[in-house]
């Protein structure tokens, strides 16, 4: 299978023109498949009602890797991300087909425990959405419901380390009782990151986690991501190509619901194999 796709890729790129033919974007070019994958998605289709949001996306994600998703607005990055912890279940009109294996198990099966899945696959949402509770409670909520800390002391410790890793501790350590929604937009974003990592998920889905952050906070989050990579798998959506190239090993380019290209980050940004990718990263898109 791997070989076959590689062959196709060469066939695609063999024509120097790089112009997408009618079906050119239906096939993903690059290396979407891995030998040892943590998550492997095959032919995922997502429909909102009758409207298709994602077409036949197949992609492997390895353990200990950071994979970045880029692409123009509305191309289905968030939708794809939300498939991986079945957040799309919460939208009534949304239908997902295809298979997504996490450690060899299909997460789309009906008998899969969604609660457990979401504890293992954490998510940071595109818009900061802290609970209207205190900062402490925001971070402690996940560990509390999963029973990760039997004693309050342990919880305090989890809260502190999570906030430290999200680079928020120094700003909020004196006002943990204050409302999470009383923070600035960027602080809220970091609070949400802290809340997610407090559960120690094995896979973290990040939907533009740095969109509201200044360069310093962004650098902290990027450090955090690089640190987390040692143990976890991270899938991050970003609109900043610099960020993608700084933190990710592989990058996937989405276009109108299609996964156009997946390559190592260096390759994708320096030597894109698909015309659409090249247009996008050189700013010629649109």
């Amino acid at each position, binding site marked *: 299978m791997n070989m076959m796709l590689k062959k196709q890729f060469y066939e695609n790129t063999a024509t120097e023109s790089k112009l997408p033919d009618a079906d050119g974007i239906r096939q993903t070019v690059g290396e979407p498949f891995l030998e040892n994958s943590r998550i492997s998605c095959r032919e995922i289709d997502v429909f909102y009602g009758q409207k298709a949001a994602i077409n036949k996306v197949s992609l492997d994600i390895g353990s200990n890797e950071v994979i970045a998703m880029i692409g123009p607005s509305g191309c289905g990055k968030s939708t794809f991300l939300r498939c991986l*912890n079945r*957040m799309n279940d919460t939208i009534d009109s949304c239908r997902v087909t295809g298979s997504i294996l996490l450690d060899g198990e299909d997460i789309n099966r009906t008998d899969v425990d969604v609660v*457990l899945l*979401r504890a293992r696959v954490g998510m940071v*949402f595109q818009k900061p*959405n802290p609970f209207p509770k205190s900062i402490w409670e925001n971070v402690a909520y*996940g560990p509390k419901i999963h029973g990760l800390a039997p004693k309050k002391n342990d919880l305090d410790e989890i809260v502190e380390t999570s906030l430290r890793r999200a680079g928020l501790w120094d700003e909020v350590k004196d006002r943990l009782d204050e409302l999470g929604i009383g923070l600035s937009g960027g602080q809220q974003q970091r609070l949400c990151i802290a809340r997610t990592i407090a559960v120690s998920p094995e896979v973290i889905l990040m939907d533009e986690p740095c969109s509201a952050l200044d360069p310093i906070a962004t650098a902290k989050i990027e450090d955090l991501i690089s640190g987390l990579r040692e143990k976890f798998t991270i899938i991050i959506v970003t609109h900043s190509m610099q960020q993608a190239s700084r933190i990710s090993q592989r990058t996937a380019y989405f276009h109108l619901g299609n996964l156009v290209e997946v390559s190592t980050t260096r390759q994708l940004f320096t030597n894109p194999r698909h015309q659409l990718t090249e247009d996008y990263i050189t700013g010629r898109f649109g």
Partner: protein
Amino acid sequence: MTEKKKYNLHSVTDRVHSGLSRRYRAEKCFRRFGVCAIGLSLFFLVILFADIMHKGLPAFLQTQIKLAVFFDPELLPLENLETADFNALLKSSCRALFPGVKGRRSKKSLYKLVSDGAAYELRKQVLRNHKLIGTTQDLWLIADDELDMLMKGNIARNPTGRFNQQQLYWIEKLEQDGRLRRRFNLTFFTSGDSRDPELSGILGALSGTVLTLLITLMFSFPIGIGAAIYLEEFLKKGRFSDFLEVNINNLAAVPSIIFGLLGLGIFINFFGLPRSAPLVGGLVLTLMTLPTIIISSRAAIKAVPPSIREAALGLGASPVQVVFHHVLPLALPGMLTGTIIGMARALGETAPLLMIGMVAFIVDIPKSFNSAATVLPVQIYLWADSPERAFTERTSAAIIVLLVFLVLMNASAVYLRRKFERRW
């Protein structure tokens, strides 16, 4: 090119500028309209309150008459005090006031100045203290409602009206002797209904209302909120949920008397619950308030931003945890508001209660959910229907009590809401 751009910019400013005064005028108009609307409603509210206060406040005072009562040992045999003729005792005390009165007619019109309730009062005092027997005591006793009305200026002091020449003379005499006074009308707050206006009170209806509303709250709050949560959070949207929604909205608009009929058919005829009982009244009002509570609770739940749910779900909270940890606390203030609106409506409801017999003349103060009772609005209706002038006064007084009750209820709701809102 630049010339043109400049020109355009200029004209945009001009246009905005020329439209500005119109926009401000519209704003001013709207503000004036708002002030007018509020002013008008305040005006009517003040008129309503002033009228009710004017009519009802005098009912909180009651005329009393001072009699020198000789507790005649002959009339009060110690062995059967319980059945002694206290009416005779009262009558003799009246006669003692004006020893010259002769003839059955005259005597009768003299007795009419004192309320029948005065005899009960004498009985109570004697039973409490046997030593009174054989002594003469100056006692302030409750006057008849007609005398009360006369003293309050509601009945004209001329012999053509309710009082004859003789009675008017006596009244004048009593006033001169300082034997008439007005005091706080405690009876009004401590007794149930009565045929005699001066002996009737609001407590029966008030406790009936409290018992009925307790039942209503106990059933409609949990059921309503549970239903709303299920409908909003768990039921799949589709034809069935639309069907339910339409029906609930319809129920909210069904005339309340139909709920009364339903209650009569189900609770009394089928389940055999007692008639006129607060239990049945509360259940009927529960049926009536449920749609209101469900609709407002659903609105409150809908107003909780979906991002909160997503955040909790994304952390691995189960749907029930999402509801109880996040949605419910946020929606609770709105739910409370809806509940209070429903309860306030239930408080003022008369029609459905007529159907289940809560309109009866009930003297006893209801003590349990099963005893016969009536409620404030029904009491108001009953009194408003009575011909006595003193009942007119008491009608307004009962309205005041109802309003105070309402204000207390709403204030507690506001307090609760604040409390729950502050938890965040």
